[in-house]
Structure formats: C-alpha cells, structure tokens
C-alpha cells in the first residue's frame, strides 16, 4: 500500500526536470532533493485540485447568476455525489501521507558516521565545534560564523541551545530544526554538492533575532581535513568547555555594534 502510494512521487522524482519547481530548489543534500520532489508532488496535487475547485466556483458564479424571480429546485442532497467528494479526498490524503512517510523516514534516519558537528545556538550567535578535534567556530550576529562540512559524507549534527529556542535553518538544505535548551537534537545531512550556503535563525529569540546569521561551507574531504588541522586551537577547546561567551577562536566575537543593531 505504502509503495503503491509512493509511486506518483517516484514518477515525479524520475521526471524531475519536466515538472515545474513551484518556487522551491533541489538543494545540495540528499534530503533536500527528496524534499524538493515531495514538494513538487504536493504542488502538482494542490494545483490540480485548486484549479478544479476554482473553475467549479467560477462556473457556478457565472452560470447561475440571478436572472429572474424564479425559485430554483430546492435540491438539498445528492448522496452519491457527497460520498464521492468524501472518499476521494480520503484516498488523496492517504496517498500524500504515504509519500510523506517515505521522505520523512529518510530525514529522521541517523546513519552512523565519523563526521560529527556540535552546533550550539545562543543569543545571538552560533558555535560549531568538532568533537574529537579542538576546532571551534564561534560568531555572533552579522559575523556569519561558518560551519565547514565535507561533501559526500554523512554529517551528524548535535543541535543544542544555551538559552532560548533558536531555529537552525539552512534555506538551501530545505530543512530546519529547533535548537532547544535541554534537548539534544540530532540529525544527519549528506551534501552532494560543494558550495557555501546561507543559514539564519528562524525562531524568534529576542532582540537581535533578525541578525543571527551563519554559513555552511561544503568542501571536499581533503579540504575539510586540512581546514580542521589549520584551525585546531587547543586553548579554544578548553575555553569552550567553560562558557560559550568567552571564546578565543577563529572568529573574534563582539557585542552587536550600532550598525548591526539597526539603530
């Protein structure tokens, strides 16, 4: 049942370029591509149903304008018709649900991997540390701290928050997740294209929420390894154990300035 319902999605996935993008982008990760195809599938459905209903409304509105004082037939029920538009939506809904499950299971899967990044969100910035190494990247607001990850590798991310709830959102990955205080949120991303991708906090977290930027840089495994060794900083690793705000790292944080605070 689940596979049959997933067929349309597979069909959409196979014929990828012929189906319009409906405003979304495939993105550089494996999951972002599945989400994109799911998006296309939902959009085709929504467009077909929406167009059908709007045409019905337009037809009714134009065709049955009041032309006289005649009172139309007082029809109140048409049971077969009502059954049709109850049962058909239920079938559609279960189809959508099956397609959802396929992509969802992909997204929540956590395969074992050696590349792990601890992402810690705080007011108002990000700290990316790489367990097992001494590399720590910290940056506040417009400093745009950069998380470097290797391409074609599963990257396991542990997402936490120091204070309030933040949203880890990289637009290109078609993915977001809350950074919750007291919760260790874990997910895996696997980028298949290199590049630099913009990220931003999406969950309101106080005054400088608008400025809580970061970047994700996807590089080759060699570049990643050399980046790690170039940026290892024993003192930073020690410092990061004590507190987030006192860092000596690749980025020198500063309080938000007047310009970044937008008056």
């Amino acid at each position, binding site marked *: 049942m689940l596979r049959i319902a997933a067929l349309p999605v597979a069909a959409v996935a196979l014929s990828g370029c012929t189906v319009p993008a409906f405003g979304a982008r495939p993105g550089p990760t494996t999951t972002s591509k599945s989400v994109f195809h799911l998006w296309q599938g939902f959009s085709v459905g929504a467009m077909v149903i929406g167009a059908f209903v709007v045409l019905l409304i337009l037809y009714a509105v134009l065709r049955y304008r009041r032309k006289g004082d005649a009172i139309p037939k007082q029809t109140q029920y048409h049971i077969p018709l009502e059954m049709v538009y109850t049962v058909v939506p239920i079938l559609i809904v279960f189809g959508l649900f099956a397609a959802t499950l396929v992509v969802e299971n992909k997204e929540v899967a956590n395969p074992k991997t050696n590349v792990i990044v601890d992402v810690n969100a705080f*007011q108002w910035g990000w700290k990316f540390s790489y367990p097992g190494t001494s590399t720590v990247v910290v940056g506040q607001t417009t400093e745009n701290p950069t998380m470097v990850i290797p391409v074609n590798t599963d990257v396991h991310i542990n997402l936490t928050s120091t204070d309030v709830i933040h949203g880890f*959102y990289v637009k290109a990955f078609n993915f977001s997740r809350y950074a919750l205080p007291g919760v260790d949120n874990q997910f895996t991303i696997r980028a298949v294209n290199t590049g630099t991708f913009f990220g931003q906090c999406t969950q*309101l977290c106080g005054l400088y929420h608008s400025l809580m930027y970061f970047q994700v840089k996807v590089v080759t495994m060699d570049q990643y390894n050399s980046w790690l060794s170039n940026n290892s900083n024993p003192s930073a690793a020690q410092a990061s154990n004590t507190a987030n705000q006192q860092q000596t790292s690749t980025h020198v944080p500063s309080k938000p300035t007047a310009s970044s605070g937008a008056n």
Partner: protein
Amino acid sequence: MTDVLNPPVTTPSDDHGHEEHHGPTGILKWITTTDHKVIGLSYTVTSVLMLVIGGLFAEIIRFQLATPNANLVSLAQYNELFTMHGSVMIYLFAGPFAFGGLANIIVPIQIGAPDMAFPRLNALSYWLYLTGAITMLAGFFTAGGAANFGWVAYAPLSNSINTPGAGADLWIGGLLLTGFSAIFTGVNLTATIFYLRAPGMTMFRMPIFTWNMLVTGILILLAFPVLTAGLVMLYCDRHFGTHIYSVTGGGVPVLWQHIFWFWGHPEVYILALPFFGMVTEIIPVFSRKPVFGYKGMIFATLSIAALSLGVWAHHMFTTGVVLLPFFSIMSLLIAVPTGIKIFNWIGTMWRGQIWFSTAMLMAIGFVVTFLIGGLTGIYLASPPLDFFTHDTYFVVAHFHSVVMALVLGGMAGLYYWGPKITGYLLNERYGKIQFWFLFIGTQVFTFPQYLLGLRGMPRRVAIYAHDPQWKLLNDWSTIGAILIGVSTLIFVVNVAVSWKKYPAGDNPWDAHTLEWFTTSPPPHHNFYRLPQIRSERPTWDYNHPEHRSLGHGKHPGLGDPHPEVVED
C-alpha cells in the same frame, strides 16, 4: 398537511416582549444591560476597533519591511509590534468578533430563544473581554514596552530573565481575562443551544451557523482552560520562582509549546468555525437554495472539532521531540471535512439563482481565499515540507490566507446581519468597492509572502539587509497591505454614509432562518411571534410554503421520523 405548510402564527408562550422597558438610560443602560443583542453589539464594535488597531500595527510592520534595512521602528519596537499584532488579531479580534459579537446576537434568535441562557454571565464576559483588551494594550504605555516574545510566547524566551518588565505581565493578565471571557461565552452558547431552543427546533433543524457555534462553544470549553492553566504556570515561573518551563530547575520548555498549541490548534477552529457558519448561512440565502448537504455539513463540522484535539503538535514538528506520523495523518485528515464544506458551498450555488450582494461577494471571496490557505495548509501537515518552510514567510502567508478569509467572512456577516441588528442596510456600491479592494489586496498581500518563504525569508525579522533581493516581493506584499487598509477605510466611510439611511425591513434578503422572522432590530426578548418550525428554514417555509427543501430518496426531513412532513 396544509396546517404544517401554512402554520398558524402563534404568540410565543410567555410574553417576554413587554417587560423591562423602564430600566436605566444612557451609559448606565449600557453598563447594566443583560440583553444579548446589546452585549453582542458592544462586542462587535469593540472587536472591529481591535481589527483596526491590529491592522495599524500590520501596516507599520509592512512599511518597515518595504526596504531591507529600514529604521522606521527599532528592533525592539518591531518585536513588540508583531507580538501585539498577532495577539490583538487572534485574542481580541477574530474570536470575540465571532463568538462574542455576531454569535451572541444571532444564535439565540436563530433558535427562537428570548436571550442567552445566562444573561448576566454574558455581560460579565463582555466586561472581562474589554478589560482584558485594555490590559493587554496597556503594555505599550509601560516603561519596557509591550510584550515582545511573539504571540505564542515560547518559553524560555517568555521567562523573567529574557523578557522582564510589566508589558509581558500585562499580556499574561490580559489573556487571563479574555480567556475567562471566552470560557463564559462558551458555557453560555452551549447551554443556550442545548436548552433554549424553540418548540420543533430539533438539533437537526438548527441553522448551520448555530451548529458551528455549538461546536465552537464545546471547543472553547476544551481548549481555553488549558491555556489559562498554562498562563498561570508561566506567571509562576516569572514571579514565584517555579521552574515549570525552565531547564535550570528541571523543567521542560517544550511543555509550554504542548500546552499552548493544545489550546492553539483548537483555537484555530474556534476562530474559523463561526466564519464557516456565517458563510454557510449567506451562500444558500443568496443562491435561493437550501444548503447543499446539510447533514454532511454538520458531520464535517463535528469531524473538524473531533480531529482538532489531536493535531496540536503539527506546530512543533521541527522541535524534533514529537510523534511525527500521528500528527501528520491527523492534520492531513482535517483536509477531508474542510473539502466537504467547500464542495457543499459550491453545490449550494449550483443551479441556484445567485444574487451578488456584497455579503455574497464577500462569502465567495472567503471560499476562494480559504481554499488557498487550506491547500497550503496541507503542505504544512507533511513534516518534511514543514521542516522546509517552518518559521518562514510561507507559514505567515498560509495563515494570513486563512485569517484574511475570515476577515472576508466576517465582513460578509456584517453586511448580512448588520441590517438585522441595526435595522438599516449598508450601501451596496461602497460594499462592492470594499470587496474588490479587500479581495485583491489579500491576494497581492499573501502571494509574495509564499514566494518569500520559499526563498528563505524567516518570520519576525525586522531587517533583511543580508538579502536585499527580497525587497521586490516585500514591496508587493506592502502594496497588498495598503489595499486591505483602504478597504477598511471604505468600510468606515460606508458605515458613515449609510447611517440610518436605508431601512432594511424585517427580511431584506428573503432569508431562511428565524432571525429574519422577527423585526429589525428585534424587540426585547426577540420575538412577538414564531412560525411553526418544520425544517432548518422556518422563515423560508413560511414565506414559500410551496418550495420546501427536497429530501433525498426515502429519507425525508432530517431527524424527523414522519415522512409525510415533506411529501410535497
């Protein structure tokens, strides 16, 4: 059966119509009234005022976002503005307008009752609502400004460390007051509908608006106490040193989200169902047909209510700590009864004689706008697509399609029932101009926001200097907001222009339900006489005895065991 089809007009049982004419006058009359029509009118006027206030906040927000790095308001002021915009619109406009305003006036008359079941509780509801609104808005006049943690007040941002100050406490206090007001209204509506129906007005002869208000009342009773409890705990966290929502003391921040959305999602239907009901009254009247699939409509309303309790965590998919498949399928299933409603509305218009009055135009605008909001809601019920769009402008656009549909429905309700309440019609020409501004403005306002969300613009950001390419779409959205603002001005002008100018008469629309059987405005305790009630359209049956609703197959009147009633 002629005596059924041409029922004798009878005087209602006990003559309520003539007592209490020597009460106080002037402002004391307004303060001491227990008449549901006066209370409902107070509610309506207050909530429309709140719509204007919330709308002004929205216009400021849109002007701020018209340029990427605007400094019309500061970051702090911006946070206050969108928090209060959301709070005013959700807590102080949409709900109170529907279940305190129009429902308060219309429901007792639709079921032939002399008043609400608890008139003094009804008056108390209004005073709690008014003082709650004042309390919440008073935050702007405190030193720290109004509440600024968003209308959802997520813990731990809403605790006393991250949001100190009286503004947040006033927000909590205001919400406690309006919450109790809503609970009392829910009690009142449910009791009135269960116990004060006129003879012959069986449950399955109640107009759909009354049905929807009954279900709204039940949902209020389910949902609002949860919010009130959550707020009390939030206040304790802020002031009494408890750690219910804070990690440091062993609490769970996500608990607030569970509690808030356990209220918040039924609240979505508490807001929407009354407007569904209004539209379901209006479309049949102006199509000159009974509502298509009356029983299916009730079934749909009940299923929405039943499912609404099990979908709250679809607001929390990205927390990573909720059961995704359960909430996904429950949320997707709600599309089914909603779809039934939309098809029933189309079925009602089908082969009808549609009169494009302003109320009807607004109702059709509601259906189209709600369709858009509903279809985009289906995306959000799918966790992967929610991860994709959560907390971006896509979500903002989705729920603004929905709530702007409610505004269209509310305007339809005002144009439709306004004459019953005041005795005077509104100007139709101004009304139609208002409709086009409102309808086109709504689409121009929301469509760019859908695209902005897909391009990654997060909610609740005051500046987007990083992404100046978002400016064009934001500008279109601002133009839409201006059009909506203009439509509101046209409405105000319309009220001024048509002030006591076009007497309505008892039944200007040739409508179906009992409220059109009495005078406009209705007398104290509503009725001098009542017709026999033999279907859900007693006034229509009285006026057009030869055009009763056709039953289906062997099943005649609903809830009616006697087939001969509709054998004409």
